[in-house]
């Protein structure tokens, strides 16, 4: 029997869920008024300023994994685990100059798929789309399931109800407001998350002293303080490269780069990374302090909520609920918007109906948002326990995209066939290592194999590329930066 459940009364859980749901949907309706054009709906008018840009980068990267898996990493891998998890911020740091470059090369771009298709041709594009859609869908499903499971654990709300509510709210405000609503709600969510984590961390810091914590861990959990734990050493770069691959390839991050003003994109991602980096450290510290707080950990992913409630009481439980709701919503809405953009632009417009006008594309985009929500809901209902493990399969797949994307942006002579082979072989060999050696090698091997193939093929068979090919702006189009839209 699990005694670490339902830290909040169910009625209060329902109340908070309904309250936040209504507020977020109303915000979606409000911001939806700004999304008059397709550019407005898909890329928020390409005019997002620094504050909103940084907030959306940080909030989107704070998922339920950050607040629940990071403490688990700390308990499983110790100090190294905490640091290893925070290296996922390097993906944001590295993407900062890339976002600037993307904005420069593709002023009218919509998706990461656009880039791969124009840069490397159709074969690489197909492989890339398969990887991206597989990763996006499994991430979205894992977030939907996490929503249901966490609301059940924190407030005793039945799994199906909690999962349905979270997905429905996110689908509705994304449907109404497009990327405007996504980025706007991200700003609010980022503040709530930061405040929540800081408050809980600060209170716990004042309730314990480091000597007591250290002593408790040194006696009961000595391996958590060890530097030479092999699992932690292996996870360090594997986790970093998984994060890098997720950010480099996924349209969630590319759509934000397209949405931000030209001179803002790089700075926004840097700031987003800086704000994100301390969060896994803070929640990891909470996990390490659990021994000195006298908490019996049953589920390592629940140690954060349990510790917060123990220290802060009822108020802590509410803070936990709000932080988790915000972290889930900020990721699910981004995935809905970005994945529907990818399918609308890359599949519908490019492959099915090239002559579609803006109104048709916008309606298609909205239809796809609804369908994605429905498919996600149907799969989440099955509550497949091993789905989180399926998400780990994406490690070698996304790891294999790091070098094709980065080299494609900065090297004029990257070989397109090499990029195609890098993604394919990096994914396959990474998956083999996943099963033969372990999950802690998969992303690393996928990225390493891909890197070797890209470098080798480019050195042996360089192929010149004209950067102007990436600019698909129609000759008579208005400058994107002069469109009215979201400001900072």
């Amino acid at each position, binding site marked *: 029997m699990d005694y670490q459940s339902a830290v909040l009364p169910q009625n209060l859980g329902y109340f908070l869920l309904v309250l936040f749901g209504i507020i977020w949907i109303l915000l979606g309706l409000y911001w939806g008024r700004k999304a008059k054009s397709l550019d407005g709906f898909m890329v928020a008018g390409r005019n997002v300023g620094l504050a909103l840009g940084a907030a959306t980068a940080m909030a989107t990267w704070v998922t339920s994994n950050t607040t629940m898996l990071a403490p688990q990493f700390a308990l499983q891998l110790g100090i190294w685990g905490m640091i290893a998890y925070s290296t996922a911020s390097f993906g944001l740091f*590295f993407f900062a100059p890339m976002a600037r470059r993307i904005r420069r090369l593709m002023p009218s771009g919509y998706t990461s798929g656009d880039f791969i298709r124009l840069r490397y041709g159709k074969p690489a594009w197909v492989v890339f789309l398969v990887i991206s859609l597989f990763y996006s869908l499994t991430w979205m499903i894992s977030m939907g399931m996490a929503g249901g499971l966490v609301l059940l654990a924190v407030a005793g709300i039945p799994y199906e109800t909690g999962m349905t509510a979270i997905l429905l709210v996110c689908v509705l405000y994304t449907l109404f407001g497009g990327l405007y609503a996504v980025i706007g709600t991200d700003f609010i969510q980022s503040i709530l998350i930061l405040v929540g984590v800081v408050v809980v961390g600060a209170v716990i810091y004042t309730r314990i002293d480091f000597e007591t914590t250290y002593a408790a*861990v040194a006696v009961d959990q000595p391996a958590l303080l060890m530097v030479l734990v092999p*699992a932690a050493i292996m996870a360090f770069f594997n986790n970093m490269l998984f994060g890098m691959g997720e950010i480099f390839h996924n349209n969630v991050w590319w759509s934000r780069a397209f949405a931000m003003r030209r001179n803002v994109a790089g700075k926004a991602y840097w700031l987003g990374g800086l704000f994100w980096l301390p969060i896994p450290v803070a929640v990891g510290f909470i996990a390490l302090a659990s021994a000195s707080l006298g908490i019996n950990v049953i589920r*390592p992913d629940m140690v954060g909520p349990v510790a917060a409630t123990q220290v802060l009481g009822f108020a802590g439980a509410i803070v936990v609920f709000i932080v988790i709701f915000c972290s889930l919503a900020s990721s699910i809405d981004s995935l809905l918007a970005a994945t529907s953009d990818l399918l609308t632009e890359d599949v519908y417009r490019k492959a099915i109906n090239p002559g579609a006008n803006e109104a048709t594309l916008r309606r298609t985009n909205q239809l796809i948002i609804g369908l994605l929500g429905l498919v996600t809901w149907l799969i989440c209902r099955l509550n497949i326990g091993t789905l989180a493990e399926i998400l780990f399969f994406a490690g070698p797949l996304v790891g294999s995209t790091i070098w094709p994307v980065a080299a494609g942006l900065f090297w004029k002579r990257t070989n397109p066939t090499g990029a195609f082979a890098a993604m394919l072989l990096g994914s396959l060999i990474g998956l083999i290592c996943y099963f033969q050696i372990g999950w802690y090698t998969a992303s690393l091997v996928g990225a390493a194999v891909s890197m070797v193939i890209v470098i080798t093929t480019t050195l042996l068979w360089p192929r010149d590329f004209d950067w102007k090919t990436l600019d698909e702006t129609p000759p008579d189009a208005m400058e994107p930066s002069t469109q009215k839209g979201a400001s900072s």
Partner: protein
Amino acid sequence: MLGFHTKTNSLPPNGISGRTYPTNGFMFLFSNPAGIPRVSSFSFVTTLVWLTTAVFLGGAPTATFVTPEPHAPVASSHFSLEWTAGADDDEELHFELRQSGGPDFADPRVRYEGPDRATFLAGLPEGDHYFQIRAKTPDADSAGPWSDSFHLTIQYQSLTLAWFLFGVGAVVFLATLVLVVAGSTKARREEKAETTERGAFSGPS
């Protein structure tokens, strides 16, 4: 002293087993000598079974581990343990988990005491670890016998493999860093040169 309680009796359980049973037409309680026995309907057979169990158990029920003992060393430093008091389990029972470095439990250390039926053991160093569990009544007046010991061997993965993978990761990380930094620096220089060229061509009117 034996006694009987009505379904609505609220006297705390006490005595040999300290248990009350939910109503199925029967409630049976061992009251203390000062307690006032009350009469209720009962099943003769159930009473007999209870009496026999109470005599032989002589305390809180026996707890056992639910988690199967691993046959091979475990590579990670964490492990989840679950236990139960089996058919005699009661929500009011508490449990005590102890750990030792040897099977004789010469140097036991209490890892947990409370009502939970599981724990996540984190930060276990390499080597052999032995665990035992026992059930206790909530007021710790009586405790059941210690369970059979649970043997866990922790043996980490190869440090050589770990450092090799770390090295591969470091190479990929550094190479990517050089690509991005050098690439963006070069791109900025080219953009600047392009802007300067455009400015030179447009020239004064």
